[in-house]
């Protein structure tokens, strides 16, 4: 079975983002970029499936500007077999990404598509669910455990009340949560090897997909800030302040 893993290039999770002075967005110039952390977990899971024999090819796919090639190379260095870039700038909205991925899926015919549950830039949490809807495939979202048993994919999902188990008919779309696995680091030899792995580039036009946005970003502002309050030095002082000053207990 082929496994398709869509991945996204985002601002590194450890960077504190800054809103641009003209309020048109956040500063992306000279900011460290990296693979979205949830996508790393998705790549890791697909590679483990191949290592365990339940998958035979892992294909990473990115939708975005040409620099997304770096992100794809990272996926290849982790162990993916080949990469596909759908080159388009800026990165489209989730619905358009899902349509592009559907077109790729129809060409590649994977048995499973594994994605991150959300990207830490837009925090939309949509693409996987949309892709499953467009393909009319089963969906396992926010997955923290995954196993393939014949034509059934068994997943455990992290939900607000705890955990939920669902059996999915293959082919399935899976979106991964943090606790599914701990992604590996690419070794230097694997980074070198990744440079020679195949990376094909397509465009939305070639795939016949309209990626024009439906949403207009009118402005992006700093959130209302909080300032540090006072220090307390004893339990009595804290309880007194919570009771009589803040009046919250």
């Amino acid at each position: 079975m082929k496994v398709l893993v869509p991945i996204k290039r985002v601002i590194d999770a450890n960077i504190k983002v800054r809103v641009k002075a003209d309020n048109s967005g956040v500063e992306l110039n000279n900011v460290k970029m990296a693979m979205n952390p949830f996508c790393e977990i998705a790549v890791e899971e697909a590679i483990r499936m191949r290592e365990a024999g339940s998958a035979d090819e892992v294909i990473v796919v990115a939708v975005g500007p040409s620099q997304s090639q770096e992100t794809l190379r990272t996926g290849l260095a982790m162990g993916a077999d080949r990469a596909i870039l759908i080159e388009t700038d800026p990165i489209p909205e989730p619905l358009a990404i899902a349509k592009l991925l559907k077109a790729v899926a129809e060409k590649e015919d994977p048995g499973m598509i594994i994605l991150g549950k959300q990207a830490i830039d837009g925090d939309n949490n949509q693409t996987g669910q949309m892709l499953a809807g467009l393909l009319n495939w089963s969906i396992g979202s926010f997955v923290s455990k995954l196993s393939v048993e014949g034509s059934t994919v068994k997943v455990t999902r992290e939900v607000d009340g705890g955990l939920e188990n669902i059996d999915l008919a293959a082919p399935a779309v899976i979106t991964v949560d943090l606790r599914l696995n701990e992604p590996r680091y690419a070794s230097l030899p694997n980074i070198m090897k990744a440079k020679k792995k195949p990376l094909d580039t397509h465009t939305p036009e070639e795939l016949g997909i309209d990626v024009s946005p439906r949403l207009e970003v009118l402005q992006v502002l700093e959130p209302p800030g909080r300032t540090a309050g006072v220090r307390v030095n004893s339990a009595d002082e804290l309880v007194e302040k919570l009771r009589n000053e803040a009046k919250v207990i």
Partner: protein
Amino acid sequence: MSILVIGEHDNAALRPSTLNVVTAAKALGSDIDVLIAGSDCQGAADEAATIAGITRVLKADDAALSDGLAENMAPLVQSLAENYSHVLAPATTYGKNLLPRAAAILDVQQISDISGIESEDTFVRPIYAGNAMATVRSNDALKLITVRTTSFEAAEFGGAAPVEDVSGGTNAQLSTFAGEELTRSERPELTTADIIVSGGRGMQSSENFAMLETLADKLGAAVGASRAAVDAGYVPNDYQVGQTGKVVAPDVYIAVGISGAIQHLAGMKDSKIIVAINKDEEAPIFQVADYGWVTDLFEAIPQLEASLGADAS
């Protein structure tokens, strides 16, 4: 404007998230229907009917809808959507799982996790773990929206709306519910609690976490946790507060042994009062705390309990 609110429930009763979404709907218009889709869901439908200010409850009662599977639910939402200008769901795991699928088959670009409503087509939403707030206008004719529940008050009860049956449960035969492990607790629910006591990696073990639970019970509080505490197995996943866990906004959030990473702050910085208990005075949590106590938590927690007990209000 006519608005469909997708009600979250467990068939027998409504989940509180539905009430926050109804309040968001009221900012858009006054013609509000609440969909209760489930199996043997009369109880939830009857409860929804008593929400003040709604027009109707639509009850879709079908075995295929019993577990809220998105594959079976999305076509129902699709078939109802044409009657509405807006379809709203809570930005809970339930709504996040379902609504994007419905949006895709309706060819709508969903707007996720809104925290504010500027007009019928313009919304405010946090991006980058809440480090920026985007104002976005939708050019889709139909709007599908998930609502950040902590940003809208709960709607009141006291209404008596009619309950109408709608059909539309079909089993897509794509997935099957195979059981759940829900965390049972007598404590208040995290997302609606007035007081939250939350522990991080500093707690060191699940045994130590029990200390926080005792403190929480004294305060009538819910218990939350950082990702590090959940990853380490001290507490179940549903305790996680943050960018990728639950978003909470209680009257007071007491963070114990939590450093205050941006991803954690994303889930709690709208709390009215934040208390930080941490032995590292440089911990970033102190930058957002109204009351900071630099101390060892293992000494602080018993002292806090004693102080609460000594002059119980």
